[in-house]
């Protein structure tokens, strides 16, 4: 499988390199859909300039990336393009390995179940995936990530979003300690991956055969162990940033900026329009309401999906990319890359046609309406926000559709594929 992966990497890098050389790169780097106030390369350059002058990069209210990123580019600024391409490539390889690992696990689990065959009803066998079917999934995932136009745009715009994605992806397949470190790196970059803690812990527990049972001491011992490592490395990172800069400037400027959303530049998220229209004294309340969305779903989803941490992780990534304060298309690309992993759910998906049409149309309409609003002056912000809203509704429908399909497959695995009513007629599942 190494050959197709290499080919894929070569193709992906070629596309990116070609786009870097074309005049499109400048246009893309200006698009609000691709870069956010946090991830814009222009702002990183500004931060670097301030740093070189011996001023705190956060003093200008332009730069909002973390200190580690600016020190990374302090050394790599001449190789920025290569760095971004490398980040994408590493992410793709990490995805590839992670999904491969996950598939191995699924097959092992399935074989275990096959031994106790009476657990699954006979007619469910067609729901169970064969290893042959799953052979190409890791490659498809890597392909979905690398050749997704969203990822390409994000990389060509040198949006640091690509760098933020990398640690989030590297998370799943490593050992406990590196797991905690990478997750903490992702959290350090943009707070929201905090919610990935739950799937990460569940995943590790599943691997170590620790039952998820809050009455057992081993469960709590594991949680404490993990949280200690996580918080410890977070502490180390934050202190490291402090020693690099010599001041705490960056805390309000990075995390305050993410949480209090002062920059209302239009983007594909839900925040800007609401907060631009809102009366100032409601701001704090609605800020809490909007921000809580990201964290709110963690607990119910974790309870429902405690046996399926990877799916839980997918759901969490999607929720983050929909509800975060400055989303870009790069965030969407991350969870969309995982869609091939759930290709066995396709028969249960209900709105996939509608949703994909809407997503496609919206992605094309973003630049068109932006042009009408900003350049032609004939449309206004309502047009653009309408598309943003539609885009996010479609994303939510997509995610909930996958969630429903996943639960339904689980239900069929236990109760049989062809459900009968009590009187023997064919039954249908209704979600109400």
């Amino acid at each position, binding site marked *: 499988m190494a050959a197709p992966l290499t080919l894929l990497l070569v193709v992906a890098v070629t596309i990116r390199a070609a786009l870097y050389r074309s005049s499109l790169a400048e246009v893309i780097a200006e698009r609000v859909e691709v870069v956010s106030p946090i991830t814009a390369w222009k702002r990183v350059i500004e931060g670097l300039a301030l740093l070189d002058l011996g001023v705190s990069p956060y003093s200008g209210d332009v730069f909002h990336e973390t200190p580690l990123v600016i020190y990374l580019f302090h050394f790599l600024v001449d190789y920025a393009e290569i760095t971004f391409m490398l980040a994408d490539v590493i992410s793709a390889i990490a995805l590839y390995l992670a999904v491969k690992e996950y598939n191995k696990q699924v097959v092992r689990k399935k074989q275990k179940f096959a031994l106790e065959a009476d657990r699954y009803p006979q007619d469910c066998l067609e729901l169970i995936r064969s290893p042959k079917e799953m052979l190409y999934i890791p490659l498809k995932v890597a392909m979905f990530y690398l050749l997704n136009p969203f990822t390409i745009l994000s990389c060509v715009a040198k949006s640091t979003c690509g760098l933020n994605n990398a640690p989030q992806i590297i998370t799943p397949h490593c050992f406990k300690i590196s797991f905690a470190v990478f997750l903490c790196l992702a959290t350090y970059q943009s707070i929201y991956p905090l919610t990935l803690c739950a799937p990460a812990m569940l995943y590790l527990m599943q691997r170590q055969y620790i039952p998820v049972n809050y009455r057992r001491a081993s469960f709590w011992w594991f949680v404490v162990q993990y949280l200690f490592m996580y918080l410890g490395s977070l502490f180390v990172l934050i202190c490291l940033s402090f020693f690099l800069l010599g001041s705490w400037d960056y805390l309000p400027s990075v995390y305050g900026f993410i949480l209090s959303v002062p920059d209302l530049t239009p983007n594909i998220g839900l925040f800007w329009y609401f907060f631009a229209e809102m009366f100032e004294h409601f701001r704090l309340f609605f800020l809490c309401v909007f921000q809580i969305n990201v964290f709110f779903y963690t607990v119910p989803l974790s309870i429902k999906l405690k046996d399926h941490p990877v799916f839980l992780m997918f759901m969490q990534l999607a929720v983050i990319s929909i509800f975060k304060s400055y989303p870009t298309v790069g965030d969407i690309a991350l969870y969309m890359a995982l869609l091939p992993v759930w290709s066995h759910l396709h028969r249960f998906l*209900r709105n996939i046609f509608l949703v994909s049409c809407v997503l496609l149309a919206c992605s094309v309409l973003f630049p068109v309406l932006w042009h*009408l609003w900003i350049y*032609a*002056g*004939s*449309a206004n912000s309502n047009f653009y926000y309408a598309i943003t809203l539609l885009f996010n509704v479609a994303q939510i429908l997509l995610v909930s559709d996958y969630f429903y399909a996943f639960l339904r497959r689980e239900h069929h695995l236990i109760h049989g594929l062809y459900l009968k009513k009590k009187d023997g007629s064919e039954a249908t599942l*209704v*979600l109400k």
Partner: protein
Amino acid sequence: MGLLSDPNRRRALISLLTRLNAPICVLCYFAAVCWFMGLSFEPFTLRTYMSENAMGSTMVEERFPAGERALATAKEFGAHKKKVGGMPVDWLVKTMQARGLEVFTQRFSRTLPFPDENNERYIVEGTNVYGILRAPRAPRTEALVLSAPCSPGDDNNQAVGLLLGLAHYFRSKSIFWAKDIIFLVNEHDLIGMQAWLEGYHHTNTTGMDWSPLQGRGGSIQAALSLELSSDVVTSLDIVLEGLNGQLPNLDLANLFYAFCQKIGVLCTIQGRIQRNDWDSVSGYSHAVQTMMLMVMKQASGRSWGDHGLFLRYHIEAATIKGINSFRQYKTDATTVGRLLEGMYRKLNNLLERLHQSYFFYLMPSLSHFVSIGYYMPAFGLLAVILLLRALDLWVQLATPPSRNEDGVADIEQSSTGVLSVLTPLVISHLTGAALYMLPVRFQEMAVEHFQVSETEAVVLTAIAVYTGGLALPHNTHRYWLISGEGTEQGWRVLKLVAVLYLAVLLGCTALINFSLGFILALTLVPVASFVTPHVPKLLSAVVLVILSPAFTLLFSVFIFQELQEMPVSFQDGWMLYLSVISQGILDHYLYGSLVYPLIALMVYPCWLLFWNILFWK
């Protein structure tokens, strides 16, 4: 959410939509056409009204007295123009300075990609002369523009004369002005205007050479371009359609209409006088024709007057044309001057840019308009057809295979499906790219080898590439893919992709330029909905060709001539068609009109996909 979650209702709805797909589509198509035709029926339209407060209630008394003097200046200008054999720059500078303006000139030059046979120009060099009247009443942060083109021959002398007369009068009444007023005489109509606007805004989008402007006013709020070729006029015509189908804010048209009413000048749009008998057949057809003219002009994406380029810079602009016909009642230059004075004084009152009224509208007459909310459903009904067809295809694709075939076959099939879709997509887009690149690139070679002029070479190459594209793509997948593409699956996937592509493409086009989107949809949607490999080949091929973008353009040329009451024979129509193509290409290279690249790079490849489906083996 009932529909989205209840499987029984969903199934019922989907089976209804697939069973009745064809009748619903036909119904939608006719509903769309009827809706569109109904738009110009007067009870369905809205009356125009002034939305901008700053221009609505304030009283202005127009006093411009010097029409005769303006005409004398026009004669003098004409004499100097004849003597110099072009723009009399020195005379203009001197005259403007004598009227108390700050005068500047701008030189520009531009070599066209190929000779423009309509206007007989290839290497264009010229000078713009403009004078600025500084605003005494306010900081000079905003400006208004009055422009008149210096045309070859005796055309537009009166416009320049009136412009100079107004400049003199405005200067003497300078106590009015809160905005700088820029009086611009541009040479070589749109090319000069393009150079001036690029110079004013420090941009260079088309690679033209111009000398930087020495003097500037504030940011331009509104502009009027004046075209006047006779001492007296019977009516004034307002031209709104700008580059890429952009329109100025409706308030500008309202302002013109309001002043025409006040001063008692006959005003027209599309050169057609408004009629009051909307309830009679002829009155209705008059309104339809007026609106159709607007739709055609907007769809062409050209700038129909010198104002068209201002719109790109977010400046509301229109052209006012004096028309002298055989009517009894004439209006003299003094009255036209008073009208312009009134309009400028109202524009001078603006506190912010014109934005209150509509930007998306169609006008069946000057007093009535159709807003975006009324005309978009006509397009929406056409777009629904595409979505219904796509849904139908999706259902057909989704139902049979997943049950009876095992996973391996499924994967193989989907991968060949992707490949067999990808090949036609890539090939048709390459053809499109060739259609975009080759005509201008290969003109020299074509001129060397054939007995044609450069312009003919460009147009004929375009037509040759276009027809060549028909022969090219449908042969390829036979050689590229030997396995698996014989299935029904292949063309269904391709058609699904093509239909969705067309829907998105037309939707975006209609948002930017409704008329273009609607005309393309009218012809392409039937193609998209009926084409399968199983329909009779020859007949469908003929229908497909007749409904292709090139023929749409040909028909549009004839219909446009018909609407203008200048019907042409087929021979002349063909020549006109060729010149329209060359003008379209020139518009793209000179001013950045997007219609030619849109057709060549997107619409034509999309149409080729349907052609491909028809000949699917």
